């Protein structure tokens, strides 16, 4: 496993973790732009733009892009979050030229009007699809409430209204402001030759516009006690709650990952034994999400409506206990074993390495090998967990719920 990094003159960062024994290679363009970089009048544009990328450029039509990716048997797609738009694929090593050319095409699409009009229909369908997924609705609502007045509260998909109103011209402007080479990282994992990667990067990316967009990363200061109630006819009640947690650059982020496993993993965690194992809830989980400058504890509860109040009480009891007494050495060790194994197993495939490789670079400008990550994990102590809990106690400042209940006690 050999790591390489460089930067093109226009600011595009290139990183690669190469392994000649891998069967495949994975390539991703990590663009540092997402819903938090949008203004209200273009809400949803980052995600819509991600769709438009597959419509091609002067050289390739939309049909060409999909056809050629399929001709090389690629697994490819893209995703948009609050902070990163990612275009990625995994391929057999012999197709690196075609794969690089196509992925590079995606970054600077032509954004033709007729493609824009057609894809707008698909985006509206996607909004409809997520509207039928109640946990997603709860997530969007809780993010909006928690980050009220902060850019992280912007919806990734946008609304039916904002997408309907959006123009191709607005999208072109957004693209020209945010798809600057200094906002981009090209990450490569698996079986490739570094010189070849460089040669292709020069060929396809040298002419891209230079520059970088600044992103304010003040830590969010959410108000406490906010509640949003959304009524929908469902069998179960879906609840999401957020509280402040360490940011992506915080040294406490790894302790936070471990604590989330101890308290709210989907198996063998405190919340699992208290709520899921006895059959009181279908899901009761605690997650840790990291962002630029901010972070969240995300509690998700899904159960029958009549058990919601008592289940929330049980969760609060768990949180109170952890905040007061911390966790045990045995719990810490077990969580480390669990995370170490997840890390190693995921890393056996180039596609599994790509997200941590690119994510670490975008957020922290650092390379961590699997061995580095394992060492960092191993060094976390109960003291670190205590420091974490002191600064970011478990709890909730905002709640969103979807289901038949008309109110949920805060």
């Amino acid at each position, binding site marked *: 496993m050999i790591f390489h990094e460089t930067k093109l003159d226009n600011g595009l960062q290139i990183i690669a973790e190469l392994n000649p024994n891998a069967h495949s290679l994975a390539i991703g363009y990590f663009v540092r732009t997402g819903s938090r970089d949008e203004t209200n009048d273009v809400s949803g544009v980052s995600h819509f733009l991600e769709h438009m990328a597959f419509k091609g450029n002067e050289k390739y039509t939309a049909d060409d892009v999909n056809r050629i990716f399929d001709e090389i048997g690629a697994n490819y797609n893209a995703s948009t979050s609050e902070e990163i738009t990612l275009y990625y694929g995994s391929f057999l090593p012999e197709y690196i030229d075609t794969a690089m050319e196509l992925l590079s095409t995606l970054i600077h699409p032509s954004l033709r009007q007729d493609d824009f009009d057609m894809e707008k229909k698909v985006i509206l369908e996607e909004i409809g699809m997520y509207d039928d997924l109640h946990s997603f609705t709860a997530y969007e609502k809780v993010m909006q409430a928690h980050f009220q007045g902060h850019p992280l509260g912007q919806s990734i998909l946008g609304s039916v209204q904002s997408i309907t109103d959006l123009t191709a011209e607005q999208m072109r402007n957004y693209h020209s402001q945010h798809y600057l080479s200094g906002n981009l990282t090209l990450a490569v994992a698996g079986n490739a030759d570094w010189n070849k990667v460089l040669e292709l990067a020069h060929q396809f990316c040298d002419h891209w516009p230079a520059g970088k967009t600044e992103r304010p990363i003040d830590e969010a200061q959410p108000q406490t006690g906010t509640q949003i109630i959304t009524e929908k006819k469902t069998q179960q009640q879906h609840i999401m709650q957020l509280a402040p947690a360490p940011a992506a650059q915080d040294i406490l982020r790894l302790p936070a990952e471990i604590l989330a496993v101890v308290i709210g993993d989907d198996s063998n965690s405190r919340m699992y034994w208290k709520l899921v194992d006895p059959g009181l809830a279908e899901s009761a989980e605690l997650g840790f999400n990291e962002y630029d400058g901010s972070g969240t504890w995300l509690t998700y509860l899904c159960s029958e409506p009549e058990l919601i109040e008592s289940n929330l009480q049980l969760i609060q009891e768990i949180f109170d206990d952890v905040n007061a007494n911390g966790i045990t050495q045995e719990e810490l060790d077990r969580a480390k074993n669990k995370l170490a194994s997840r890390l190693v*197993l995921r890393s056996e495939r180039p596609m599994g390495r790509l997200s941590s490789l690119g994510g670490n670079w975008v957020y922290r400008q650092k390379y961590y090998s699997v061995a580095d990550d394992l060492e960092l994990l191993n060094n976390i102590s109960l003291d670190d967990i205590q420091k974490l809990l002191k600064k970011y106690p478990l709890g909730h400042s905002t709640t969103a719920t979807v289901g038949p209940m008309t109110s949920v006690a805060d």
Partner: protein
Amino acid sequence: MGKQLIQTHRFPNGLTLVTESMPDVQSAAFTIMVPGGSIYDPPDKRGTGSILSDLITRGAGEYDSQQLSSALDNLGVQRHEGVSNAHITFTGATLADKLADTLKIYAHIIREPHLPEDQFDASRAGVAQALLSVEDDPRQKALVELKRRSFPSPWGLPSDGELDQLAGISIDDIKAHYTAGFHPDDTIIGIAGNIDFDEVRELIEGLFGDWEPSAGREEPALEFATEKTFFTEQETTQTHLGVAYDAVPYGHPDYYTAWAAVGILSGGMSARLFTEVREKRGLCYTVSASLVGMPGIGRVLCYAGTTSERAQETLDVTLHELQRLGEGIDNSELERCKARAKSSLIMSQESTSSRAASIARDWFYLKHITTLDQIHDEIQQLTTDRILGYVHAHPAANFTVLTIGPKPLEVPSDLS
């Protein structure tokens, strides 16, 4: 594709071990398929196998429920257990040097589960919650209900069970299901990863060699539905469409031809359904078709989710595309299928979990393992003429159509 090191061994008690050695990886993964699936649920107690698959890990051998989870977590095992129609399946992956200790625990789970009575209600409640969550997810519900209506009972029935029958199930039913289903004959253990076959065979011999075989069991009779069109009214934002029609099953000489036919419809973003329904008309975000089977019976199951005002058009266009396949196939469409197959076969060698599941599944369906080279050769030999011949012999017709949404759609009568 590289030579695969596949070995199999059948123990005197009927247990089958299938392994694939993968020296380039650090991990090992296993799939254990025990013949205690939902098709063996008593007809009025659908959900028995599902409750058993939950209760069975709540303590076994020397471990109580929490000790069992902790022991597996400490071994770094990423695990899952669940019920399918034919089996209760245990899967896991961990570092190869932890495999032996891991399988020792699984021998306890499979052979000496506590099946604690005081946790029965919790297990049953967990199954009920899972079934309720399907009710809340119309896309999942559409596929569950489509399968129910397009496969014969009990194979088409939801393996998680029926909500209204859970109350009638007792702990004694669970114990009876365990006794009838958990035996070495017909159990398959698939292991893939950085392993030595002789060591693994000895390990399994030690853990399962003295497991008593069953006295035999009657396979459930198949019942075929006659109705073809279904509508469930639900207040959803989208209308969720399911369409099914006949295909050949896994193991059939034409299986890979059928696979390619479905691949031309739905394999990749240049495939027909995605192009015609989504890209050209913007009718939906998701549209797909896949080949699904049980022993001896195969179906193509299609799904599309679309805004209700455009649902009729989506259904019409989808049905048209399914039928249009018989009019002609371009060689480039077949070449893309072949390319996808080649790359996914090669990449599957990077995943021990995928290989373990694949070899165990092969044994269940075929009683032998198809190597990746063999699959590759089968697919390379396909021609458009052969696929068209298959499509004409097994046309997209005699559809089962199911919709979930605010209002019903018109299904052309000449189609169903």
